């Protein structure tokens, strides 16, 4: 393990605590070449605090488990290189602030799973042909890169600052709905759901979700705004409403 030793040390200020409160505790960690914040947390677990609670799985930015706030910014710990932070300054590591804390760096993210269940599942159109072009799905494949790290949910001010979990599903699920709505042969209609349940109107497209997404999904521009436009088609565009009333046509053509 010492092969990569650099002789340097870094101070990590890790939040320790639970629902009843807590505080940042400083740990001094020897730095190895290429170390990420999650490595440092593991070092602390192995040498200083075996009960330090943290979620992780892949250590390769593929599973979306190790979400936290590093120096105040929502990030994956396994992707946050120590040498990308200013040298000599402590690094703070805190749990996500949008969800209730369980302990230390672990938060209760089950709300997200509750919301997910309410989204109408994939429903192929009747007698659809299972053939489509790559160009039909490039768009949707971007949304399906989501690793459910919930960092976008964490940073979204509607959930984080205004605490509107009872009115807004959050960017992750708008991305998911976009993936379903734009699926070439999905036939379910989630537009009313978007407006009345997922609360897409509460998103004010300020793009923090896009800024933090570790998968680089252009959440706001590619998922949310196109969905907002579909909601406009259905509910707010007077000409289209009249047109549909006259012709009986559906939107989306």
């Amino acid at each position, binding site marked *: 393990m010492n092969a990569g030793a650099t002789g340097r040390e870094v101070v990590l200020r890790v939040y320790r605590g639970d629902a009843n409160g807590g505080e940042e505790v400083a740990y001094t960690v020897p730095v190895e070449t290429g170390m990420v914040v999650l490595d440092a947390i593991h070092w602390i677990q192995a040498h200083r605090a075996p009960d330090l609670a943290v979620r992780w799985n892949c250590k390769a930015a593929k599973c979306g488990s190790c979400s936290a706030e590093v120096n105040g910014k929502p990030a994956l710990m396994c992707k946050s290189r120590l040498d990308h932070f200013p040298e000599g300054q402590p690094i703070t590591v805190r749990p996500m602030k949008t969800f209730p804390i369980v302990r230390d760096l672990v938060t209760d993210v089950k709300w997200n799973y509750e919301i997910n269940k309410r989204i109408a599942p994939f429903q192929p159109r009747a007698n659809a042909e299972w053939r489509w072009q790559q160009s039909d799905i490039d768009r949707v494949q971007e949304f399906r890169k989501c690793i459910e790290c919930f960092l976008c949910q964490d940073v979204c001010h509607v959930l984080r600052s205004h605490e509107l979990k009872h009115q807004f599903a959050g960017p992750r699920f708008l991305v998911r709905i976009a993936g379903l709505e734009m699926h070439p042969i999905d036939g379910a209609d989630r537009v009313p759901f978007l407006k009345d*349940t997922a*609360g897409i109107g509460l998103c004010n497209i300020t793009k*923090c979700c896009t800024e933090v997404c570790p998968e680089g999904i252009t959440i706001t521009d590619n998922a949310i705004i*196109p969905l907002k436009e579909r909601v406009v088609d259905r509910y707010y565009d007077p000409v289209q409403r009249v047109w549909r009333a006259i012709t009986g046509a559906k939107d989306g053509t």
Partner: protein
Amino acid sequence: MPVAPQRKLSAASAPTAVGARGVPATGTAPGAWSGAGSRQGFGATERGDAWWFKPVLQAAGLIVLIGYANYAAFLGAAHYRYLENGRDYLSPFYSPYIHPAWLPVWLSPALLILVFPLGFRATCYYYRKAYYRSFFADPIACAVGEPRQAYCGEVKFPFLLQNLHRYFLYAALVFLVILWIDVVKAFIFSAPALAAAAPAVTSALGLHAAREAASGGHYLAIGGGSLAILFSTGMLTLYTLSCHSLRHLVGGKLDCFSCAAAGGPRHKTWSIVTVLNGHHMAWAWWSLFAVCFADFLVRMCSIGVIHDPTLATFRHLLEMPNRSLSLLR
């Protein structure tokens, strides 16, 4: 001994009823699952970087440019057009130029038309982001505490009107056509003006120009103002063609391109708009700046502070009889 099960993720349940008066309801009880973030005051954050810099810069940029635009539109009506020296430069703020007789003198004609570009920008997805962040601090920066707890996003009046953006887009597309005509006009100089504006050139051109001047012909030329107006309209075009609503309307609304009528061309168009759309923020700023700059130049020429340079003339390439030009003017 067994206690009630609590934490399992159970089977899918139907969402509860919609909230009152258009307010959405996810089915979660208000206040449930709350985290530490909602208890943070304005500006509270562990971020150590200069998170305030961008919103402040953005606010400053918007204040300066919008301030200038207001000045130009409302107070500067006297110098919106430059018609001397063979030029016909029209400030983009005043295009299309409509000046009905009933308009009181103290009211700028820009007012009649400005509601469209103004509305277009005010409801633009990018500008919304910019002013929500910089002026409403909603949020001022990511993961930074906010000043107010209350929030209704875009689900209530007046913000509900943001949904009408596409109508402003339609207007903007019409405006674009007019603005391009202005550009053409900005490149067509009238001959007598040439003689008056640049005697040295005239003497160098000799007989030919003199004859042309006498005939009152028009010809292609490039002045500083022509370029400024071209730049302004060019940027406005990129800004308009990169609009999110346009992206939706030209093809984004389709679920399956290859299954739709004319799916191929629609996918192609959508792809092009998508590429432009990726830089929508850049076009938004550049176009705002370019419009102000063009207005500024026209204004300065008109006031006489700046002498508009003639950069090139192409009188051999295009000599237009008055008739065809009168169609344009």
